[in-house]
């Protein structure tokens, strides 16, 4: 569905991604993991067409992003950025902006909700507080509203950059459960940057670990989330096992290769 091949991205003298290849089939949930600064967000931004790679191409459903207009891309790929400024908008106004790509500036002037907005509000459970201003909501409600914005674009591919950061454990699970349900209902292809390895293993079909801009491990969670990955990618000593429900669980014993935490 979305495929990146031979991606190379550098910021000045620093190379952030070296020859990264990722092919995400339709309907898959891919989790990107790795240390801060390893290139996860950069990869997500390149896949979203928000950043032009120095080398390599990204195609969505067979069409290269380089040949598509910004609006065409937005109809195919929706992105939830890590953070958004205070927009002063209500939830409904926020979600309406997701229709810009579909309706265009003239269509947006007409105002009003189309079915995609109503559905996005209903499906994310934000309809109840649709007319509340975003800055009056809790972090969990706000994140649901942002997800509704991405959903309103009606794109088959959803890219989420750290959707659970800043959320308590209840709202982390709430958002991930919501994405799970929406993916099933709408047949979405999902790519998320996640920091919690156990969550990545539990929710995603596939995990890619990046280290220094290179794909270090790629495969189903059971094969990728291992003590070796903790050591090699995160420089952390730890244990990985299945709990009594068969879910992958991680315990972190300390930093590898030095005295700290031992």
């Amino acid at each position, binding site marked *: 569905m979305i495929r990146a091949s031979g991606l190379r991205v550098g910021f000045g003298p620093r190379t952030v991604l070296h020859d990264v290849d990722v092919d995400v089939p339709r309907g898959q949930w891919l989790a990107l993991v790795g240390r801060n600064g390893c290139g996860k967000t950069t990869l997500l931004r390149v896949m979203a067409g928000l950043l032009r790679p120095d080398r390599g191409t990204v195609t969505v459903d067979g069409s290269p992003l380089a040949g598509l207009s910004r*609006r065409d891309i937005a109809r195919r790929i929706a*992105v939830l950025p890590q953070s*958004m400024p205070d927009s*002063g908008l209500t939830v409904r106004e926020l979600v309406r902006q997701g229709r810009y790509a579909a309706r265009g*500036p003239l269509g947006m*002037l007409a105002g009003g909700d189309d079915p995609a907005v109503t559905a996005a509000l209903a499906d994310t459970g934000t309809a109840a507080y649709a007319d509340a201003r975003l800055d009056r909501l809790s972090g969990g409600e706000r994140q649901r509203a942002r997800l509704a914005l991405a959903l309103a674009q009606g794109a088959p591919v959803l890219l989420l950059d750290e959707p659970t950061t800043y959320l308590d454990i209840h709202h982390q699970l709430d958002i991930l459960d919501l994405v799970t349900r929406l993916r099933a209902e709408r047949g979405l292809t999902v790519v998320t940057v996640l920091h919690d390895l156990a969550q990545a293993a539990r929710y995603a079909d596939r995990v890619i670990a990046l280290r220094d801009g290179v794909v270090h491990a790629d495969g189903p969670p059971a094969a990728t989330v291992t003590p070796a990955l903790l050591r090699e990618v995160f420089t952390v000593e730890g244990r990985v096992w299945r709990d009594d429900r068969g879910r992958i669980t991680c315990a972190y014993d300390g930093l590898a290769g030095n005295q700290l935490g031992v």
Partner: protein
Amino acid sequence: MPRSLAGPWALGLAVVVLGLAAVMVGQPFVGLNRLVPALLAADGLEHALVVQSRAPRAALALLAGAALGAAGHLLQESLRNPLAVPELLGVSSGAAAAVTVAVVFTLPVPLLAAAALGAGVGGALTLLAIRRAAGPDSVLLAGAAVSAALQAVLLAAHSLSDTRDQGVLSRYLLGSLTGTTWTDVLTALPIAALAAPFAVLAVPALRVLRLGDEAAASAGLRPGRARLGVLAVACALVASVVAHCGPVAWVGFLAPRLAGGGLGRAAACGAVLVLGADLLARTVLYPVELPVGGLTAVLAVVAGLLTARRWR
């Protein structure tokens, strides 16, 4: 968005009342009962005063206020900064600099042409400088840099000026509507009218820009390009009036603030402000006229302090 101080009906009413007052008030006072006869008369003092002097002045006040208010709204929204004022576009400082140079060196060009040329060059310089700006903040900085450069030209030329030139120069430094004719209105109107539909078209893009550049781009908008387009429209709006009446200081800052959101309201608030301020400017110290820009600047300070707590 902060709430507005006045609803659309109140704003419309204020425009009508102040517009009427602008053609009635003065020496001599032309009452409502004499207004229609004065308009219909073939000649006479009241006819000349109302039709040739007060009416074009009121019309330009309305147009200038609306254009500056709308331009201020476009700027503040597209840069998400309450201090993004039309003065930062380099348009008014370009006009002022060109006029000052023309006056001081007694260049053989009509002042209006010099002002229009300066406004165009100033705006174009700013747009060129911000073409590659990375975000709202660098746009603001680039705009401020171009404005500062033009101000420097202006001050350098101004230091060579004669006291006799002060009247002309203060018009383009502070803004004034003294001596407005129908020619002024009729040359300003087409440019403003041409820019107006583009300003309306920019409204949806401004909404999307509120999400921040990253989310705006993922919603299908090119933030840099959209911002450049919006600023070009703002430049055209400012340029349409600044060549005739100068910058009318701080209207572009104040009007969107008082309006509390919305392009139309910002334009209406601008019209009310300039109409009201000009009425004061030509009556409080009669027969001496104050530059309207001086009054709007004072009003901006007062209103700015009063409403500062409401703003975010």
